[in-house]
């Protein structure tokens, strides 16, 4: 049945070469943990991607209940966590996944660094990787505010004060992030929500696409 449906589409659109090109490639022996157990260090990039997928999915579902508004944000988080079935689990996935994705990304960075995998011709991919690192930290920072509890508020205050210490453009940066020069409130919350849910994920997907295209084009760096 499935085979027939696939054949029907394939006959008309010739999709086999497309997925073959994406999925069908050999894993070199030196990165396969089945050959050398120490090759598990090559898994961290894939794990980062896997957790990112979980973050996107769980985040999409969370927005079914969450409202980015100073009156209702905390109430809606409290509701989805305590009254909606599996709310604890879905929010838990997003909460713990946020930390885990940064841990995995850091381990991936360490592996690339200590193996010297960033060297010519892969310098550009390192640069894109560092940009992804920045976007991920931004996602963590903006997501932290969204529950609008005391911890979120004061963490954001501190973060914005740090942004303000940048020479010359600091105060403008703070105002741009917070939506107001002095208040951390209604406009900060909606801004952080928009950045967290639309702008940074968009940037992240673009950068990840570039990251993956480059690694497919150049191949994984050779054995040490």
């Amino acid at each position, binding site marked *: 049945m499935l085979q027939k449906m696939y054949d029907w589409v394939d006959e008309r659109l010739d999709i086999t070469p497309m997925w073959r090109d994406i999925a069908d490639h050999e894993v070199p022996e030196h990165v396969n943990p089945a050959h050398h157990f120490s090759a598990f260090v090559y898994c961290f990039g894939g794990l980062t991607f896997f957790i990112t997928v979980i973050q996107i*999915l769980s985040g999409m579902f969370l927005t079914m209940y969450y409202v980015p508004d100073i009156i209702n944000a905390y109430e809606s988080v409290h*509701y989805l966590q305590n009254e909606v*079935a*599996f709310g604890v689990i*879905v929010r838990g996935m997003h909460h713990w996944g946020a930390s885990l994705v940064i841990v995995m990304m850091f381990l991936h960075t360490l592996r690339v660094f200590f193996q010297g995998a960033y060297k010519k011709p892969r310098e550009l991919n390192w640069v894109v990787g560092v940009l992804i690192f920045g976007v991920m930290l931004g996602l963590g920072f903006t997501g932290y505010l969204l529950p609008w509890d005391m911890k979120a508020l004061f963490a954001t205050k501190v973060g914005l004060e740090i942004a303000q210490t940048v020479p010359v453009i600091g105060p403008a940066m703070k105002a741009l992030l917070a939506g107001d020069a002095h208040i951390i409130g209604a406009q900060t919350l909606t801004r952080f929500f928009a950045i967290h849910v639309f702008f940074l994920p968009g940037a992240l997907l673009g950068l990840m696409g570039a990251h993956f295209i480059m690694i497919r084009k150049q191949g994984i760096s050779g054995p040490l």
Partner: protein
Amino acid sequence: MANKDEVSRRQFLNYTLTGVGGFMAAGMLLPMVRFAIDPIMKQGAGQDMVAVVEEGKITEEPQRFTFKVNQKDGWYESEVTQAAWVFKDKNGDIVALSPICKHLGCTVDWGTDPSHPNQFYCPCHGGRYTKDGTNVKGTPPLAPLDVYKKEVKDGKLYLGQAEPQ
């Protein structure tokens, strides 16, 4: 050579990997899907009976009475105003009809259609109902108006949830 009934190594690996992968994907997606479909799995809390009007004020002519109901909408609790058309039928029994048209949910009024002064009339699409709430054949509504659960206590009329007749 492998017998043709035998599962080849490739097939075996395909099945196991699909199975394990599917199990993991399900473990990931199940909580999210259950989370999303929660509104249709939740039991409605039901509505408390609310005092609407003194029994003595109810006439044989339908009158519109409003009353306030506590509504819990997820994390948002509020007091919403509901309306009922209340009258006494020929036997002296109290009838309380919901003003919500059964066609597409507009609000019906009593006797506002000049050619049918003794019927409920919906201005949106010209739906009509007789005094007891029965929909008039040939007009858009396909069901009679909902009836409020009612109770008379200490000379006062209490109304609860509106239910289909």
